[in-house]
């Protein structure tokens, strides 16, 4: 992998980004650490990379300050310190909460933002890097989610009952990709196209490359030999992947992961280890991929009803393609032009 920051006009104004040579001069690909994972931009025309990086930086910094439960100074952390009450949120956090609640409604509670206490009970209450140091601590009793129906949001006014702690992890990263893609296209005057990836949750906007953005769907990227990745083309829309093979930790001798079944308060235990879902927006895809992991044996039926292309990888390595997800390598992923939880991004970079 070759990285450089000097060859792209304007990239010096966003020094955290590093250019990645892909072998295609028609697009510029840049990458940085952000939101606890890796953010990546692929932009055409190539000279838009600098303005794209600056626009994405603003979006990611704002989202971090709004919705990260790991930052003591974030808006959501300040809200949750009050243990319930009425709060007038910023527009950004209000949108993030609204998307999370819409996702919960759409998925019938499979992707529920009130799993905050369940995650904390499992030990995911600190920087992920620090979890390993507490592996011998006892595992507390499971804390089922109190339920998204208890949370009321009217415009920017949030009513949070005492004892309800939000975690926007099922949608926030996808929303961040959507927002960043829209911001890049606005900065570029709606010219060209962009792909934004936040930890593998991908949103696109503007005009895609001919035949679509070339991407790879990976089940276990850390063990590619055990479960082969699949290259596909994405002409428009978004793709997100949820997996129980990442962000795992041990507590009291038990292996845990970060996708919690809201009904039990324990890590989801279905047959799927990875769910990749395509949708018009990344927030939709993000919610659906989480819901698929939690739904377990019902995931295929739910995704079929939702009309979303999906690739499900079972714990035994078997792969199921649902809703028109291509069986062949290099196939095209076509998403229905409909949004369920977030309408902020679209094929023209922000059409509602």
């Amino acid at each position, binding site marked *: *992998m*070759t990285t450089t920051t000097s060859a792209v006009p304007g990239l010096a104004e966003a020094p955290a980004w590093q250019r990645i*040579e*892909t*072998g*295609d001069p028609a697009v510029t690909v840049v990458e940085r*650490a952000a939101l*606890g*994972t*890796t953010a*990546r931009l*692929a932009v055409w025309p190539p000279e838009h990379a600098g303005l794209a990086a600056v626009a994405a930086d603003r979006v990611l910094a704002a989202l*971090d300050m709004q919705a990260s439960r790991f930052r003591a100074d974030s808006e959501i952390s300040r809200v949750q310190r009050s243990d319930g009450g009425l709060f007038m949120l910023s527009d950004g956090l209000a949108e993030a909460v609204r998307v999370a609640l*819409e996702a919960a*409604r759409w998925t*019938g*509670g*499979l992707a529920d933002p009130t799993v905050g206490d369940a995650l904390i009970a499992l030990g995911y209450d*600190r920087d*992920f*890097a620090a979890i390993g140091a507490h592996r011998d601590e006892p595992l507390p009793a499971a804390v089922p989610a109190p*339920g998204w*129906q208890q949370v*009321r*949001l*009217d*415009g920017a006014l949030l009513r949070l009952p005492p004892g309800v702690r939000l975690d926007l992890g099922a949608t926030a*990263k996808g929303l961040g990709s959507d927002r960043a893609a829209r911001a890049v296209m606005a900065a570029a005057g709606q010219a060209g*196209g962009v792909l934004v*990836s936040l*930890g*593998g949750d*991908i949103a696109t906007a503007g*005009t895609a*490359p*001919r035949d679509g*953005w*070339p991407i*790879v*769907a*990976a089940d276990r*990227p850390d063990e590619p030999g055990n479960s082969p*990745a699949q290259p596909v083309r994405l*002409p428009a829309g978004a793709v997100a*992947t949820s*997996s129980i093979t*990442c*962000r795992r930790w041990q507590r009291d001798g038990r292996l845990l992961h*970060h996708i919690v079944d809201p009904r039990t308060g324990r890590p989801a235990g279905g047959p799927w280890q*990875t769910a990749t879902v395509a949708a*018009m927006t990344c927030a939709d895809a993000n919610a659906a991929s989480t819901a698929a992991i939690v739904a377990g044996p019902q995931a295929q039926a*739910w*995704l079929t009803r939702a009309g979303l292309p999906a690739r499900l990888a079972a714990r035994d390595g078997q792969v199921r393609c649902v809703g028109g997800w291509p069986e062949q390598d290099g196939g*095209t992923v076509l*998403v229905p*032009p409909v*949004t*369920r939880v977030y309408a902020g991004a679209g*094929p023209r970079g922000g059409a*509602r």
Partner: protein
Amino acid sequence: MDSEREYRPGQVPLPGAGGPPAGSPARPSSRDGIRHARRMSNWTLAALLAGTGAATVALARHALPASTGAGTTAAGSTGTAVSGGQAATAGTGGPQVSHSVATTSGSGTTVSTSTKTVNGKTVIVRTVHHAAYHDN
């Protein structure tokens, strides 16, 4: 109270006290004023009722969660159509891009796919990044 209040020269009535000062022509009688006030009250009440109803409807439509019952799965519900036409037809006007530009994988792990030239041949390089700090 039927008697009209008389205003002396130089006196200025309080706002809404019933008309122009004494000496001004065509002062309305108090009976007319009461009828006027009743008409205005009726219209005000009607406006308030209509406004309250409209506000109630608007709040009910915007407040979350709405009426979907607990545990129901709404996967098949109608979503919002995105302007811009069929998603499948987008992306026909861009450049030709052959190599993968991103990988979708589990949260917190990103695979970089890039290429390099080795002995004159293009080789795809995959690099796995594991998040070293907090998730969001």
